[in-house]
């Protein structure tokens, strides 16, 4: 074995306890990391990547156990070493950056104390030196007011800043290995760019090795020298980053960017089915929409994109009548809809349906698929008994599911199946417009692809019009005809897809579009150079 191998994991198997038995999570994985190297661990939900990342530090969560294998770090087997020996490494030689910075900082202590806690404790640096060094780290991580930010408490700074402070905490002791566990997943894209740059710069400057865990291939491509793809606790393949992107060996790896392969040719239309006109809306006293006007052409898809807090979901609530606007109106088939839900007729309600982001919470867990789809059939069309059942089966075929699903409960369905049932429930009303609120963002790529294809097929067959709320530009590319960009409760731009996605851009659209990671290892570097940000190299 070569001298510069820092971490060598062999045949690692981990089990987790649930449903009264031990189930395998990691089924025998090898992992090697050289000094100063960044390895990306990528996989979808349930791949076991977080468990593997923690195990690389010799840490196992309560309810889990390592059943086989070894993890040699600097001559010590972390699998068999006693806790006391591992504690001497944790926080100093082996550090960790968690996904949820807000929950991972202790609310009772100042940031500076948490940043340098382990460094001072283990005598790596005296307190004064460690504090000075922390300020330098804060500065190089592009945190505002690096001199004083350490005197603040976790709840006093923003999520993106906390994530960078946590990186500083992981760097403070100059560790040999840092494990990043989905550190940017909870952030908006524009914040993500800054955090990614800061983290990459810090890791490269100090020559630390790192394991970077994520489900987003485009993100990991910016960070890692090598990428390992995991699925169901097993390795699918491993390769150098550029090699992996240009020449993936396994079909599964290709499926990780399957949505990016979808593309819809945009079509223009002047026949407007639904529109919001100069709408202002507020939650209590907080005004969240300012003079918003959006029009949806019949049989087409309008995608509303924006970051969290941009007002895209609020716009949907105004359309459905859940949140009556304080000014402006909603027009449907050239007639003005009553503002409030209670004022709308059954037929008006029927024609506008909604599909939610979390299919889990959008279906009553105590009702069967037959009841869920059957209710709108009975409610709007008076179908009962045999006729209702026949129609439910027909709808199940429409969404590419077999009729045996009819008496199944939501808990007996997979994520993609659940979202399909929600689509069927919307179809049962025979609507003209369907509002889709982030309907694919909780799903794995391959499942997203299936749902998007289904929606496109249904649009063609039934002439449906979609309002498609999303933050994911790849999804926009796949499904939309027109795009609306929203920021801070205002419409920045609306137009045909080809027109919005091509220059010239308004400033915010430019910022948003350029912040979306691309499948190009040089994307982040190029972007930083273009924007003139630190950490370009």
């Amino acid at each position, binding site marked *: 074995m070569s001298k510069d191998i820092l971490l060598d994991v062999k045949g690692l198997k981990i089990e987790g306890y649930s449903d009264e038995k031990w189930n395998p999570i990691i089924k025998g994985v090898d992992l090697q990391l050289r000094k100063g190297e960044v390895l990306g661990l990528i996989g979808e939900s349930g791949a076991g990547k977080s468990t593997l990342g923690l195990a690389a530090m010799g840490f196992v969560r309560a309810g889990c156990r390592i059943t086989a294998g070894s993890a040699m770090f600097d001559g010590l087997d972390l699998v068999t070493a006693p806790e006391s020996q591992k504690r001497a490494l944790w926080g100093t030689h082996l550090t960790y950056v*968690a996904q*949820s910075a807000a929950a*991972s*900082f*202790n609310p*009772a202590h100042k940031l500076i104390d948490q940043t340098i806690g382990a460094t001072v404790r283990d005598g790596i640096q005296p307190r004064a030196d460690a504090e000075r060094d922390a300020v330098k780290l804060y500065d190089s991580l592009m945190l505002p007011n690096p001199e004083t930010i350490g005197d603040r*408490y976790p*709840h006093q700074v923003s999520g993106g800043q906390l994530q960078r402070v946590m990186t500083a905490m992981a760097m403070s002791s100059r560790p040999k290995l840092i494990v990043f566990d989905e550190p940017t997943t909870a952030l908006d894209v524009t914040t993500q760019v800054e955090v990614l740059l800061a983290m990459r710069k810090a890791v490269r400057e100090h020559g630390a090795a790192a394991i970077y865990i994520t489900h987003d291939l485009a993100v990991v491509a910016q960070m890692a020298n090598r990428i390992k793809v995991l699925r169901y606790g097993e390795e699918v393949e491993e390769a150098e980053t550029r090699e992996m992107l240009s020449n993936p060996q396994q079909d599964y790896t290709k499926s990780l960017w399957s949505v990016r392969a979808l593309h819809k040719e945009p079509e223009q239309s002047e026949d407007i089915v639904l529109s919001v006109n100069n709408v202002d809306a507020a939650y209590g006293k907080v005004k969240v929409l300012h003079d918003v006007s959006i029009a949806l052409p019949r049989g087409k898809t309008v995608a509303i994109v924006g970051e969290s807090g941009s007002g895209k979901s609020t716009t949907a609530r105004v359309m459905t009548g859940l949140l009556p606007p304080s000014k402006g109106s909603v027009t449907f088939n050239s007639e003005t809809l009553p503002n409030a839900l209670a004022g709308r007729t059954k037929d008006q309600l029927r024609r506008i349906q909604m599909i939610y982001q979390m299919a889990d919470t959008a279906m009553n867990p105590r009702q069967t698929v037959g009841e869920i789809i059957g209710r709108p059939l009975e409610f709007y069309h008076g179908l009962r008994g045999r006729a209702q059942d026949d129609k439910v089966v027909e709808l199940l075929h429409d969404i590419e599911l077999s009729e045996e699903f009819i008496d199944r409960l939501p808990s007996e369905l997979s994520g993609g199946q659940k979202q399909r049932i929600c689509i069927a429930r919307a179809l049962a009303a025979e609507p003209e417009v369907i509002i889709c609120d982030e309907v694919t963002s909780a799903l794995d790529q391959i499942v997203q692809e299936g749902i998007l294809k289904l929606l496109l097929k249904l649009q063609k067959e039934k002439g449906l019009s979609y309002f498609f709320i999303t933050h994911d530009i790849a999804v926009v590319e796949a499904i939309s005809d027109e795009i609306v960009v929203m920021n801070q409760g205002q419409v920045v731009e609306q137009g045909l897809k080809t027109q919005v996605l091509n220059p010239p851009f308004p400033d915010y659209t430019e910022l948003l579009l350029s912040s979306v990671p691309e499948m190009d290892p040089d994307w982040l570097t190029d972007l930083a150079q273009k924007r003139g940000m630190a950490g370009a190299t």
Partner: protein
Amino acid sequence: MHPVLATILKRIGLGVLTLFVVSVIIFSAVNMLPGDFGEAVLGQAATEETVAAFRRELGLDQHPVMRYVQWVGGVLQGDLGTSFSGRAASGVDRSRAVVDLVLPRLNNTLFLAAMTAIIAVPLALFLGITAALWRNSFYDKSASALTLTTISFPEFFVAYILILLLGTLYPMFPSLATVQPDMGLGERIYTAVLPALTLTLVIVAHMMRMTRAAIINLLASDYIEMARLKGESPRQVILRHALPNAWAPIATVIAFNLAYLVVGVVVVEVVFVYPGVGQLMVDAVSSRDIPVVQACALFFAATYIILNLIADVIGIVTNPRLLHPR
């Protein structure tokens, strides 16, 4: 104003408001008395004049708001009215001031509660925290089963088992805890051992379960896992990372159980014939001596409200979000 101070003042204001509403409810009790109440208290032989005089004395001919103001004014000056008992149809009044009845017993009840709390609170916290730390161990599981059993027992069951064992079969302590005003501290403690032990058993069971749940909840936080991943020793994880965030939940548990203790006192005092407020209240309820019932209810409710208030204030002053506002 500092937000901590503002929050505390707001909370105290709320406590005062609650006390006020509670006092109104307790006061209104007299108004809900059935019409023939005078006869019931004075006996069948009471003349119309004595009943009328009695009603006048209660102020039932005055406006309720006036009477409430007078009553509260009296309470604040230490005048809780006059007991119903001792009145007779003849019109001879041998009744006593409620204050004279309640005060000496108040001392006794607080003595018993304090004696129990001094043993029970540290014991329960120790057991609860250790059970949480050694979660799912044999110790934890047996403690859990044992406490679940104990909290299912009525207080008088525990009390009589103790009397049977330690009072009758192996007589070590007196089964009648009749403390006298002239007793010394040692003798007082000795006399009150069995009631205090009964209360301790009941309180410790409740409190240990709640402490354990609170600590486990705390230890499940992400920042505790982070502390472990930073290589902190188990001792440091508890002392430095868990404890500063534990004051509020622990204070709540203690206050809740002390409040429970004050109420549990009622049954235990009756079992052991301990001359406290609880026993006085039960006697007064049986004889429908309303002024005494009101005084006792006011005492118990005020204790309860104040204990919860203290717990909330501790929660406020240890909350970093309030201590260090944005």
